[in-house]
Every structure is written in structure tokens, then in C-alpha cells.
């Protein structure tokens, strides 16, 4: 039951955070000189034009009233329109078209980063102070220091045969078989291996680029947590009992070290999102990251609000899930009850 209570607390807190975040964005946008109307009409617009637009869009109402209206629209599944894009498309349609691309990219990056990062960290911990440790830690330091956009360009330079933009070859289309929007999965379901190979060729370089920073951080933390755990008394006890070193490493040290690593995953989500924005720009990947950048650059506030809402919600939700996971993994947290955990991340 505790886990349910905790889940409920986290959910309410997440929702509150999201509403506050949205309000801050909403409020800040309306504080800009001239507000959204000037962004839309340009600096040369006359006062009358601006007034007319403000009235038409409801931007002359009190901010709180606009905010409540926006929230109730959101609750009804209406995120408004991207009013600077040609044809004023609905933000929700745009987001649902672009979101799967970002999900596919981020998931592939994490599928690379987690096993490789943990593996590298384990190697480094097992060979502490010797050359494999130094090599891994050197790579990890470089991995967090090289700008991700520069790394993407370097990879393109190193593999000139690989496609550098988009999700598919231009002459191919997924339209007829699209279901989830994740091209690798859709093409497998439809049995279109030509599409699958094109999609995966386009995915590899962006995914590798995006995976580097989480991979480096996961490797470092795995190493340090393992080293700390390996010095604990229960490890010595297991060794004294006669368990082999490998057995101790895998069955005794790893489960204990898993707890901080799961919490770490939550912290990596922000890195992943920032990385996705840059990776999508370098590889012209049609996802949310590029969308939110363009919205910020063009001051398309309708689009910006929608994207912040979606990304914020996903981010907060995933963080809550990871907290619950850490709770399930760590018997100490389970015993101490949900209330003090609910006040903040355990990391």
C-alpha cells in the first residue's frame, strides 16, 4: 500500500509542478515587450493592428483568466494553434506527429548508453587503477566534455557514407504502414525490411551521438558505486564464506549498486533532452527538440507553450516512475515509508 500512497503523492506533486511551470512560461511570454501580438505582426505593426489581434486572440484579457482558459482547453485536448506556422496547424497534431521521432531517437540512445555504460563502469571497477580503468575514465571525461553537436559533426565526417539528415531516404515513405510512429517497429510489423534498413541507417549516427553523455556518466557512477560497495563488510563476508569473486561481483555487489544507478537514470533524462535538441538540429531529425528550438527562435508562443507542456509532462512523469523504481529496489526506503521519500529524490 505504501507504494500506492507514494505514487499518489508523486503524481499530485508532479501535476502541481507542471501547472506552475506552465504558468511561469505563460506569464513570461505575456511580459515581453508588445507580447505575442508584436512577435506575430512584426515590429512595424500599428497600434490598431496590435489591438485588433490582441482582442481577436483574447490576449487583452487578464493573464489569470487566459491561463485558466488555456488549462481548461488543455484538459479538453486542445493545445491551441501554432499561430506563426503557415496554415496555423493545431499544436497537438504537430506534437503527436513529431514526438515519436524524438522517442525513437532517445530510446535507441538509452539502449546503447545503459548496457555499454554499465559494462564499461564494471570493467573500470574490476581493474581499478590499472590501464583498463584509466582508458575508460579517460573516455568518460572526454565524453562529457565534447559538445554533442561537435561530436555529431565529427561522426558525419568519419562516416561520410552514412545519411546525415532525416529519418528515411527521401524517396521512401512510411505513410502506408505507420502505426506507432517508431519507424523501426512499424516497418517490422509490416514486414517492410527495405524501410527498416533505411530507417536504422538513418538512426545509427544520431543515436550514437546522443548516447555519449549518458554513457559516460553511467560508466563513472557505476564504477564509483561498485568500488564503494566492494569495500563493504558483507562483500568480505561473502568472500570469506568461499564465494568466487565473480559470484560476489554479480550477485552481491551489483544489486546493491543498482539503486543509485536507477536514481541516476532520472537525472540523465534532462541531459538526454538537452542532447536531443542539439542532435536533432545537427542531423535534421524531425522531432520535438527541433520544434521547440524553432518555436523559441521564431517566438511562436503557441507552439512553445505546447512543447514545454509535453516535454515537461514527460520529464516529470518519467522522474516519478524512476523514483518509484528506486523505492522498489531499495529495502531501506521501503521500510522507512513513503513520506520522507516523497519530499525529494533520494539521490
Amino acid at each position: 500500500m505504501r507504494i500506492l500512497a507514494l505514487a499518489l503523492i508523486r503524481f499530485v506533486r508532479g501535476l502541481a509542478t507542471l501547472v506552475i511551470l506552465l504558468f511561469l512560461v505563460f506569464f513570461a511570454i505575456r511580459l515581453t515587450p508588445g507580447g505575442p501580438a508584436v512577435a506575430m505582426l512584426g515590429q512595424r505593426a500599428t497600434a490598431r493592428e496590435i489591438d485588433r489581434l490582441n482582442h481577436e486572440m483574447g490576449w487583452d484579457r487578464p493573464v489569470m483568466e487566459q491561463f485558466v482558459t488555456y488549462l481548461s482547453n488543455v484538459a479538453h485536448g486542445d493545445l491551441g494553434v501554432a499561430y506563426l506556422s503557415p496554415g496555423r496547424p493545431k499544436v497537438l497534431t504537430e506534437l503527436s506527429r513529431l514526438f515519436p521521432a524524438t522517442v525513437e531517437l532517445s530510446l535507441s540512445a538509452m539502449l546503447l548508453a545503459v548496457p555499454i555504460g554499465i559494462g564499461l563502469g564494471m570493467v573500470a571497477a574490476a581493474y581499478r587503477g590499472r590501464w583498463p580503468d584509466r582508458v575508460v575514465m579517460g573516455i568518460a571525461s572526454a565524453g562529457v566534455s565534447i559538445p554533442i553537436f561537435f561530436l555529431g559533426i565529427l561522426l558525419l565526417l568519419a562516416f561520410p557514407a552514412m545519411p546525415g539528415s532525416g529519418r528515411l531516404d527521401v524517396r521512401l515513405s512510411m505513410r502506408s504502414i505507420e502505426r506507432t510512429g517508431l519507424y523501426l517497429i512499424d516497418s517490422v510489423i509490416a514486414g517492410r525490411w527495405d524501410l527498416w534498413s533505411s530507417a536504422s541507417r538513418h538512426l545509427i549516427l544520431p543515436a550514437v551521438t546522443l548516447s555519449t553523455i549518458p554513457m559516460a556518466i553511467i560508466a563513472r557512477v557505476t564504477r564509483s558505486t561498485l568500488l564503494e560497495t566492494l569495500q563493504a563488510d558483507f562483500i568480505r563476508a561473502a568472500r570469506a564464506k568461499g564465494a568466487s569473486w565473480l559470484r560476489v561481483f554479480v550477485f552481491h555487489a551489483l544489486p546493491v549498486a543498482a539503486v543509485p544507478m536507477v536514481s541516476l537514470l532520472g537525472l540523465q533524462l534532462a541531459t538526454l533532452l538537452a542532447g536531443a535538441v542539439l542532435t536533432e538540429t545537427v542531423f535534421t531529425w524531425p522531432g520535438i527538440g527541433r520544434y521547440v528550438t524553432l518555436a523559441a527562435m521564431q517566438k511562436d508562443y503557441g507552439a512553445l507553450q505546447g512543447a514545454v507542456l509535453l516535454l515537461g509532462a514527460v520529464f516529470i512523469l518519467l522522474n516519478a516512475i524512476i523514483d518509484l523504481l528506486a523505492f522498489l529496489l531499495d529495502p531501506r526506503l521501503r521500510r522507512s515509508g513513503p513520506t520522507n521519500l516523497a519530499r525529494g529524490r533520494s539521490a
Partner: protein
Amino acid sequence: MSRLLSAPLWAGIILATVSFLAIASPVLPLQDPYVQQSLDRLMPPSSAHWLGTDDLGRDMLSRLLHGGRYSLFVGMVAVGISLGIGGTLGICGGYAGGWIDRGISSITEILLAVPGILIALVTIAVLGPSLFNVMIAVGLSQIPHYARQSRASVLSIRSQDFVLASRMAGSSHGRIMLYHILPNVAGPILVLATMGLGSAILESAALSFLGLSGDPNRPEWGSMLHLTRERFQDQPWLVLVPGLAISGSVLSFNILGDWLRDRLDPKLQSRG
């Protein structure tokens, strides 16, 4: 061990060189980083142009060194903003306790629950694209980390005897915070700032790379990559020069930060 000791040394040497060249760039015998020589467009590195020229015939070496001034300065101002605001909030909240602390902590937690890049992008969208606003955006997005770190440090010392003694001797709260709390929390915050400098440079370069820092012709490392990234296949030096400059500086700051942390707090040694 000698190997480990030499890494921070090298990082220091690199940073000293980069800073010196950046500061001295206006008086060094360099070409003007803005002057376009249409005859010398896209020249590979040569004796006349050590690092080649870009698509407008501007000398890359000169742009690199002048760019260092912008990139390092932007990072420092951004860290200054987050350190100033975040540190003050954290110290005040941690010292005052009660509802002030709860209020500040909730704000910090909300900000921590939002990815920094979103804060930065919204800031740019509201304030408009310019290098100055990039500094503000990066600075704002880092505030919660500084607030949290300084609050945690303050909590660990605020009820120690020397603080109580000073209070009993009649010191005001302001005096205690300034003369007793601040010097004792400065260490961990300084480590955070050193490592934060690396990530601030990285983040501002990223925003410039996205084209959010206004004038793209300014010789700032991120903007240089923004301008030249389409040419990486034919003129690779145009992307390698600024890219390596960013990577080298950030790596050096990270190594120095790690070293400082190990020096100042042996408990935290080699934690990720």
C-alpha cells in the same frame, strides 16, 4: 600517481594559455576577425593563414582567439549569475529555516524538475536572441543547482558552536552569514562553480550553435560552428577549429573541477 597529478597540471596550462591568448588577442599581430578578403575564401591552413580562412575569407586563427574572449566571458558571466542568485538564495534559506527555507526550497525543486534546456529556450524566446540573453538563459537554468548545494552546506554548519558563539556575542544575522557561514561554505560552492564553468561554456556554445545568440558573424566558438557546419565535408578545418577549442576548454575545466573537489573534500573522492 604522477600521471594523475599531471592531468590537472595540463588542464591548468591549457586554460592559462587559452585565457592569455583570448585576453591578448586585440594586441596580438592578428588579422581583423571581421575583415572579409574575397580572394582568400575557404583557404586551407597555410603559412599566411595558420588555420585557414572561412567562406568569407576571414582568418580562422584570428577568429578563434577573439572568439575565446566571448566564449570564456559568456561562461563566466553565466556562472556569476547562477552563483550570485542561487548561492544567495541557498544560504539565506538554509540559514533562516522556517517558511523562508520552505519557500525557497520549493522553488528550487520546481526548477530542478524542469530540464535546464527548456528554461534556457523559453528565456531566449521571451528576451530575444542575443549573446547577452544567452548568458542570462544559461545562468538562470543553473540557479537551482547552486541553491541546493549552498543550502546543504549551510545546514551542516549553521548550528555549530562558533555560529552560536558569534550570535551570543551580539553579531547580526547578516554579519554571521557574511563572515562565518560564507567562508565555510565557499569550498564546495567553488568546486561547483569550476565545474559549472565548463558546462556553462558548453551550454552557451550550444545555444549559439542553435543560432540563438544574435549576430552570427561574431567570432564566438558556438556561432562559428553554426555558420560553418554545412561545410564540414569539404573544409573540415572550419568545424574542427572551434569544436576542438570548446572541447579542450571544457575538458580542462572539468579536470580542474574534479581535482579541486578531491582536494577540498576527500569524502567525495571520485564520486560521479
